[in-house]
């Protein structure tokens, strides 16, 4: 049952990511990307990470997609511009083959699923996923958490300086 569900979601995710790069109209690409994000959120749920799934929907499918759509409207791109050159085709094929080889190389060297982490399903079920994230975020990774606020502050100032006519 779970495998079947995963297969369906994964198939939709792959189909939608192909549509992202195949659509001629950038707005359609953006909409396909939203669908891909929703599929990723579903996969997070299946990995017992509901908080990550919620963030995926709130931040990525919600906020970041709004920004992407606004940028498309700001630049007023109607259709994909530019021709596919011989150069780009060759570079793309070479990069793709290299990544494929890399994946095959590492898969052939180790097991398909990899080693298990310290926190397993039982621990998540006992403590709760959001609690586990919060616990490490607010104790172990205290400094990175506080630095995040500085990063966000820099982004706020940057956005105002760039987009405001007279600062």
């Amino acid at each position, binding site marked *: 049952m779970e495998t079947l569900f995963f297969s369906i979601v994964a198939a939709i995710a792959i189909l939608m990511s192909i549509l992202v790069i195949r659509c001629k109209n950038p707005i359609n690409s953006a909409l396909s990307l939203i669908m891909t994000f929703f599929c990723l959120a579903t996969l997070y749920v299946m990995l017992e990470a509901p908080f990550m799934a919620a963030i995926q929907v709130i931040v990525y499918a919600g*906020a970041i997609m709004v*920004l992407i759509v*606004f940028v498309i409207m*700001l630049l007023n791109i109607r259709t994909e511009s530019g021709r596919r050159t011989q150069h780009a085709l060759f570079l793309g094929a070479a990069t793709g083959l290299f990544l494929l080889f890399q994946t095959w190389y590492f898969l052939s060297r180790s097991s398909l699923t990899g080693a298990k982490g310290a926190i397993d399903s039982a621990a998540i079920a006992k403590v709760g996923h959001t609690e586990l994230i*919060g616990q490490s975020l607010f104790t172990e990774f205290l400094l990175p958490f*506080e630095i995040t606020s*500085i990063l*966000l502050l820099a982004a706020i100032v940057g956005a105002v300086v760039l987009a*405001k006519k007279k600062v």
Partner: protein
Amino acid sequence: MLGAYLPIIVLLVVAACFGLGSVVVSSLVGQKKLSPVKLQPYECGCEPVGSAQERFSIKFYLIAMLFILFDIECVFLYPWAVLFKRLGVFGLIEMGVFVVILFVGYIYVWKKGALEWE
């Protein structure tokens, strides 16, 4: 495990069926007497002026950017709220520092008039 999420899946399926169903049923049942006026895009009853895909002002971009940044701040508040009692005063100070730094950004945005629609 997935059983707990069954209501959400049911809701998604019902929503999709409703959306698709209304289009399909109305195209099957409804009359099809098309005229140029009927095929015009509906724009609050006004005559459509120009293309819908016009160049948008950068003001939208600024608002979207600020929305994302404060959205991310809110996301950090969720796990903190869940752990509020266990973290106690330490957590309160920690989140206080985080929020105050972003509050400086908020005051900056306000003072620079980035929230004004000019």
